C-alpha cells in the first residue's frame, strides 16, 4: 500500500496535514524516557514527511531510503536531548534535512551511479507513463537547483514551515529564506518550461 500527500484528506484546503504538536509533546516525553512504543508512534507520525523531504532533496528513491533511515536513527538517538525550543516537528525536519545533506555529500564523493540526476533525466525519455515522466522531470529539475535553494523550497512546500521556522532549521535569516524560495520557484518553473509570460500588463504611462 502506498500513500501520497495529494491524495490524503486535508483539513485546510489541500495543504498537507501537519502532525499534532500536542500529541508530539506527550510522546516525546515518553520516548525520552525510553518508551519504545512512543518512539515508534512518533516516527510513524512523521515518516511520510521525512521520506518526502529526503526524496525531494536527494532526487532518487535509493538515496531517499538511506537518508530517511539515517534521519530516523538520528531522531531515536536525539529525542532524549530534544530541548523543546522549537516544535518537535521542526526539529525532526532539521534532523531530516541534515541527514539529506549528509547523504548528498556522500553521494558527491561516490562515482556517478544509477539513480543520479543525470540518469533520471535520461530515464525520462524512455518512461512510458506521463505521470512518471512528470515526476522524474520534477526530480531532475529539483536536483539541478542549488541545494540551499532546494532545502528552503522543500521545507516550505512539503513541511509547510513558515519563513521563520525554515530560517531556524537552515540557520539563515528569514529574508534569505523568502528570497531563496521565490527564486527557486522561478528557476523550477523556467526549467520545466513554464517561463514567465512577457510583461504585457497595461501601464499608466502612455
Amino acid at each position, binding site marked *: 500500500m502506498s500513500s501520497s500527500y495529494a491524495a490524503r484528506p486535508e483539513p485546510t484546503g489541500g495543504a498537507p496535514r501537519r502532525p499534532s504538536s500536542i500529541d508530539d509533546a506527550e510522546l516525546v516525553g515518553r520516548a525520552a524516557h525510553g518508551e519504545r512504543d512512543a518512539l515508534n508512534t512518533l516516527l510513524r507520525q512523521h*515518516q511520510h514527511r521525512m521520506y*518526502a523531504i529526503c526524496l525531494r532533496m536527494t532526487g532518487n528513491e535509493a538515496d531517499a531510503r538511506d537518508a*530517511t533511515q539515517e534521519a530516523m536513527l538520528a531522531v531515536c538517538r536525539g529525542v532524549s536531548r530534544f530541548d523543546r525550543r522549537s516544535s518537535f516537528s521542526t526539529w525532526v525536519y532539521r534532523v531530516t534535512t541534515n541527514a539529506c545533506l549528509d547523504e548528498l555529500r556522500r553521494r558527491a564523493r561516490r562515482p556517478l551511479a544509477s539513480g543520479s540526476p543525470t540518469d533520471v533525466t535520461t530515464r525520462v525519455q524512455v518512461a512510458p507513463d506521463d505521470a512518471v515522466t512528470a515526476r522524474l522531470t520534477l526530480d531532475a529539475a529539483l536536483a539541478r537547483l542549488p541545494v540551499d535553494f532546494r532545502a528552503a523550497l522543500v521545507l516550505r512546500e512539503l513541511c509547510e514551515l513558515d*519563513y521563520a521556522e525554515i530560517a531556524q532549521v537552515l540557520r539563515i535569516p528569514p529574508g534569505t529564506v*523568502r528570497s531563496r524560495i521565490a527564486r527557486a520557484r522561478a528557476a523550477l518553473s523556467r526549467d520545466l518550461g*513554464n517561463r514567465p509570460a512577457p510583461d504585457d500588463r497595461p501601464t499608466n504611462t502612455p
Partner: protein
Amino acid sequence: MNVPDDLPDDLVVSAVLDGAATDATRRSVAADPVLAARLAVFGALRDEMRDVAASDDLLDQLRTAAVASFAGEPPVQRAAQRRPRLATRQWATRQWVAAAAAAVVLVAGIGLFTSRGPGGSSAEDASRSSTAGPATAAFTERATADVAGTGAAGAGTLPTAKAAGVPESAPANLGAVASLDALAATYRVQVTRNGAAKATGATGATQATGAPPTTGCGTPVAEAFLGDTLVRLELRGDRVDVVEAATCKLIGSFTP
C-alpha cells in the same frame, strides 16, 4: 541550474502563495492577469512537489529497522557515540588547566629571574656573599633597593631605597620575588653583605628563615636592619608586614 536574481514580481507572488502577503497585495495579485498566472504556476509546482508516493510498507520497514537498531545498540555502543563530545570537553578542560599552569610557571619564572638580578640563584648569592668583592657589593645594593622598593609600593611608609642608604638608580620591583623564602634569603644575604644593616638573631648571627625569633609583636620570619632600625618581617596570610622591632609599629607591608 542558474537561479534568477530576485524578481520583485516573483517575490510578491511567492509571498502570496505562502500566505505571507497582506490582503491588499493578495488583491492586487489577483487583479493582475500576469501575476495571477504566475501564482497559478507556482501553485501547480507546489502540488506537484507534494505528490510524493510513498509505500507504507517501505516506511514501516525503515522505521522498524531504525528503532530496532537503536534499541539493539548496547549501552557501551551508545556511550561510545557520546564519547567524542565528552572527550572533547575533557580535552578542553585539560587544555585550560595546562594553560593556567603554564601561566603560573611563567609568572613565577619571570618573578624569580627579576628578583635574582644578574647574579644567579639565591643560594648561589648566599654562597658568593661569603667572599666580598666589587661585583657582589653592587648586587647587594641592588637587592637592598628591591626590598625597600617593595615596601614603598606596599604601604608607602617603608623607608625608600634612598632612605635606606641605597643608590636611587637601583631598581625597585615589588613583584619580582617568587616566594617569601626567596625574598627572605635575598634580603638576609644583601644586608649581611652590605653592612648597612644586619640580619640578626639572639646571637647576632644570620637567622635561618625556618627558625625565626619569637617576640610579642608576632612571629617574624626574618629580621634585619633597615638603616639603623631593626625590623621584622611577619607573615600575615598572603601579606608580609614589615614591623619595627622595638615598638611593634607597622612600617609597611607587601605581598610577595
